[in-house]
């Protein structure tokens, strides 16, 4: 190859590589600051859900609140299904766009890696369990690059379990970090451990305490970094949050977390409690960015039928969440709901059989465990309605750019920070 040919082919190759980053996502050319909607609720239908059981419905429609179709649940596992209220007449799929063949393309199909990818928009095959993300999370990007910068009260990360998940509310990236993190909350632990019977101080006295504390802090050669103290809310917002948390504690004491949505107490699982709590966050704070994490389907490592049942429960919870959004002034008709698992599960089962004779499923990075779905729901003026995309379109890293585009801060993110693309196919 002569020098001229080499340069020509190199230029073509470079164009082939860079073009997809420029055109399909529209990230670089998106209008500055314009928003598609003022709120995003992203529901991580997590714990590892196989497309076979969800959108391919091989055991019937286990997600009748989200998906259209009335396929019957397989007879052999029917005995393991809880009684749930009838699905709403309007399926969420009809209110938006379903990417049926979404993908988690790279990295081990582990929960934490999957969550990390979906919340940072970057595949990171080296992240360790509970290690803070190396790259900024969607919360940090949102708070830092929105104009004006957003308060922590506007971004929430509600997860159904502790484990490594608290570490996902902000990254170790030195340009971002705790000062741009989200209000992480794990409702169960928060309510169980609520500090009781505080001294009662009115606002005036609290201001005086804050003033004394400020004097002390100013007089201390502070080694406190934001990371030490986690994220930071303003004093006024802390007061609101504390009142909210104490109210939810009282609601729990009064039994509201044992009986809600018309569910029987013995059928309520942790995902549903988490989603119920997320509803209260929506009602109280109307956050612009809320990410809710469900996880109970991961029981599939030991019990397939319970997994199928938990898919149904999660589906019901998503429908109730959407109902709450539509009943909350300020969020109704101005919210985009995104639902996606972090990864799937293996095609081949493991050796553990449940009482219905079904074998359990792990997730060890086989091709099936990379198959997921993504449902984008929103008002007809913003989201294409009743659209089913059956081709393989979209991947996990596209969700951060999509959220950034919806909330209008995509164009403010420095170049090289976004690796996926905006899922423009879903939007009007």
């Amino acid at each position, binding site marked *: 190859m002569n020098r001229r040919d080499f340069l020509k082919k190199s230029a073509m190759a470079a164009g082939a590589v860079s073009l997809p980053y420029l055109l399909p996502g529209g990230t670089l050319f998106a209008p500055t600051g314009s928003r598609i909607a003022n709120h995003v609720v992203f529901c991580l239908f997590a714990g590892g859900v196989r497309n076979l059981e969800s959108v391919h419905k091989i055991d019937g429609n286990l997600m009748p609140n989200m998906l259209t179709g009335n396929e019957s649940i397989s007879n052999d596992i029917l005995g393991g299904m809880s009684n749930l209220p009838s699905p709403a007449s309007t399926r969420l799929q009809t209110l938006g766009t379903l990417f049926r063949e979404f993908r988690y393309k790279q990295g081990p199909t582990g929960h934490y890696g999957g969550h990390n990818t979906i919340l940072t928009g970057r595949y990171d095959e080296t992240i360790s369990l509970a290690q803070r993300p190396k790259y900024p999370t969607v919360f940090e990007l949102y708070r830092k690059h929105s104009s004006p910068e957003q308060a*922590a009260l506007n971004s929430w*990360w509600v997860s159904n379990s*502790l484990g490594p998940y*608290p570490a996902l*509310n902000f990254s170790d990236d030195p340009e971002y970090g705790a000062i741009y*993190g*989200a*209000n*992480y*909350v*794990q*409702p*169960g*632990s*928060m309510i*169980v*451990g*609520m*500090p*009781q*019977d*505080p*001294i009662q*101080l009115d606002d*005036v*006295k609290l201001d*005086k*305490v*804050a003033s*004394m*504390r400020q*004097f*002390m*802090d100013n*007089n*201390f*050669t*502070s*080694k*406190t970094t934001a990371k*030490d*103290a*986690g*994220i*930071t*809310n303003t004093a006024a917002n*802390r007061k609101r*949050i*504390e009142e909210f*948390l104490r109210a939810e504690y009282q609601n729990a004491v009064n039994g509201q977390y044992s009986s809600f949505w018309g569910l029987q107490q013995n059928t309520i699982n942790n995902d549903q409690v988490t989603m119920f709590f997320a509803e209260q966050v929506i009602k109280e704070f109307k956050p612009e960015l809320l990410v809710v994490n469900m996880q109970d389907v991961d029981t599939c490592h030991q019990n397939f039928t319970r997994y199928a049942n938990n898919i149904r429960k999660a589906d019901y919870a998503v429908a109730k969440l959407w109902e709450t959004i539509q009943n909350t002034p300020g969020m109704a008709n101005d919210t985009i709901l995104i639902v996606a698992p972090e990864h799937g599960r293996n095609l081949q089962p493991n050796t553990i059989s449940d009482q219905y004779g079904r074998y359990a499923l792990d997730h060890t990075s086989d091709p099936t465990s990379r198959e997921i779905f993504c449902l984008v729901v929103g008002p007809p003026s913003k989201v294409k309605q009743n659209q089913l995309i059956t081709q393989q379109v979209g991947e996990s890293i596209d969700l951060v750019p999509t959220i950034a585009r919806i909330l209008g801060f995509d164009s403010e993110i420095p170049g090289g920070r976004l690796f996926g693309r905006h899922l423009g196919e879903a939007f009007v």
Partner: protein
Amino acid sequence: MLGFKFLDHRRWTMDHRCFKKQGRGVAMLFLASLLFFASCKKEELYVYEVNDVKVKQDKGDKNNVKSQTEFIAIAYSDLFQTGIDRATLEVLLSPYQAFGDQKLIEQMIIKSFLNVPGADVPTQAEMDANRSQFVTDAYVKFLAREPDEFELWHFERLFAEDPSITPQMFYFAILTSDEYRYY
């Protein structure tokens, strides 16, 4: 030199043996003199004592952040003069891990501690009786140091001007200060 006074020529000629005897004595005397002067140096007095060392920490010396467990356990023992039991500690750790804004949780925990009967909080009368001592005691107790002159002046003046500030409020402030988070 003292010995040469005895070098008498007559005696030398008379009795050489006598001279030899005397010479030995002179030599002995010379040696004794040397020893005497050498040994008569003034004895130096060594007094061993301990230098003054500050055992309290300066503000700038606190470089270690307390862990969540340490924060709760130390705050509890500071306020109740006894260790926290493991079950209570675990319950209180739960919201600490379950919420992103650690400062908020710390404030909630301290507010609860301060309302528990048995919390070692001075009365308003004790505080008003000697504000300087109250502030100093609190700084020593919680921050392991005495307040500097400015801090002392600031709080004495503040308490004098604003009688609505209670010992509980001051304790709440100091226990949730940045400095208390360090050791």
